[in-house]
């Protein structure tokens, strides 16, 4: 009987752990060029990282370093950039940061492929933040689409972007809507997926140009990164710490609950035993 009880309790623990693990999302970054963004609280897209509210930092941001090259097929003279990627259920957030001797009219952007293809024709969408006055941190965010190998401005701009330079450090931030308006031919439709074929290639680009800029001619350096957006059934603003607390709570209360049910079962059995002895 004692052995059965121990087995039953062990089984309860295992069941409790298994059930709670189902709530876990598949997360963690992959290789340098493959990112599965984690969920976190939406940051403010203003080119600033507010550490007082743990912006980006508190979120499940994936911090990766990526080299941008003048010629991707011949990886020389790289510029190392920090790439932060996260999502919150409705948007994808990307921050690109690096130290550089900045030029006037510097820009950083994202060329978005409709799938995992790195073919230049598949980068149908572009989001670019371009400084118009670098000394006063004035910038413009523009949404483009590919039209006959030239990027033209969208009729309806989607997403948002910001940039800020402090000394030699620059912070660019982007927000892109996920699974938003599939029928829009001017934007890449970012969708959730978990299989091998899901995800989009993002070309991180940087350059500078005199007014008016022309893309892709003015792109100086670039590199590709595969971003796989996964669906999270949990509340979108759940941080990693909160998720762990939730799992731990489920384990504790689940175990207590199951032991409680087991105890009631023992009480019922006891009543049967008493009645048997009496008769």
């Amino acid at each position: 009987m004692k052995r059965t009880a121990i087995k039953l309790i062990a089984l309860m623990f295992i069941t409790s752990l298994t059930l709670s693990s189902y709530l876990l999302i598949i997360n963690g970054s992959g290789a340098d060029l493959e990112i599965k963004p984690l969920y976190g609280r939406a940051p403010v897209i203003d080119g600033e990282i507010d550490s007082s509210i743990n912006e980006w930092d508190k979120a499940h941001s994936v911090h990766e370093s990526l080299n941008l090259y003048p010629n991707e097929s011949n990886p020389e003279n790289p510029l190392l950039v920090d790439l932060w990627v996260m999502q919150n259920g409705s948007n994808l957030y990307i921050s690109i940061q690096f130290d550089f001797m900045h030029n006037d009219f510097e820009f950083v952007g994202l060329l978005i492929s409709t799938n995992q293809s790195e073919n230049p024709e598949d980068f149908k969408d572009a989001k670019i933040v371009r400084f118009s006055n670098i000394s006063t941190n004035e910038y413009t965010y523009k949404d483009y689409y590919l039209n006959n190998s030239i990027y033209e401005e969208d009729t309806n701009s989607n997403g948002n972007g910001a940039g800020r330079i402090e000394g030699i450090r620059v912070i660019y931030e982007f927000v892109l809507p996920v699974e938003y308006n599939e029928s829009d031919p001017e934007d890449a439709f970012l969708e959730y997926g978990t299989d091998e074929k899901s995800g989009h290639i993002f070309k991180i680009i940087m350059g500078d140009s005199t007014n008016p800029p022309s893309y892709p001619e003015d792109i100086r350096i670039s590199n590709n990164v595969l971003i796989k957006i996964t669906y999270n059934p949990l509340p979108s603003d759940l941080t990693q710490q909160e998720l762990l607390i939730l799992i731990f709570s489920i384990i504790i209360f689940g175990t207590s609950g199951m032991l409680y049910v087991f105890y009631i079962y023992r009480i019922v059995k006891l009543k049967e035993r008493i009645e048997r002895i009496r008769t």
Partner: protein
Amino acid sequence: MPKFKKEKKRDNRSNKKAFNEKFAYKTVIKSVIFAGFFFTLSILFNMEIITFFVNLGGLWFIIDIIIKMVAILLFFFFMVISIGNYKELTGRPLDFKLILLMFVLSLLQAFRDPIVFTFTFFGLAIVIIYMFFVQEN
């Protein structure tokens, strides 16, 4: 004549024993129901499913802490009573391991809030001491 009296006495004793068993069993059931109620209350407040009082702020914050703490303490209290009576019915004593298990399971319910955790820890210790002295008497 004396024979008849003895049988009557025996009947009375067995009736009394059956009555005691019934009473103890009823206590097991009642205590476990109360424990279940406070466990549900503990889930709602300590898992922060109900955060109504926290959101109100001020004095309600203290009320929230008290509800969380009382729910755990009463869950522990009634569970120990129930298990104690259950053990009595099976003819075994309530051992220290079970009390320790109940103590840990109750205390872990308060892990989200350090204030609730601290007060619950001392509260549980007081409940155990109280029960120990009640048992002694």
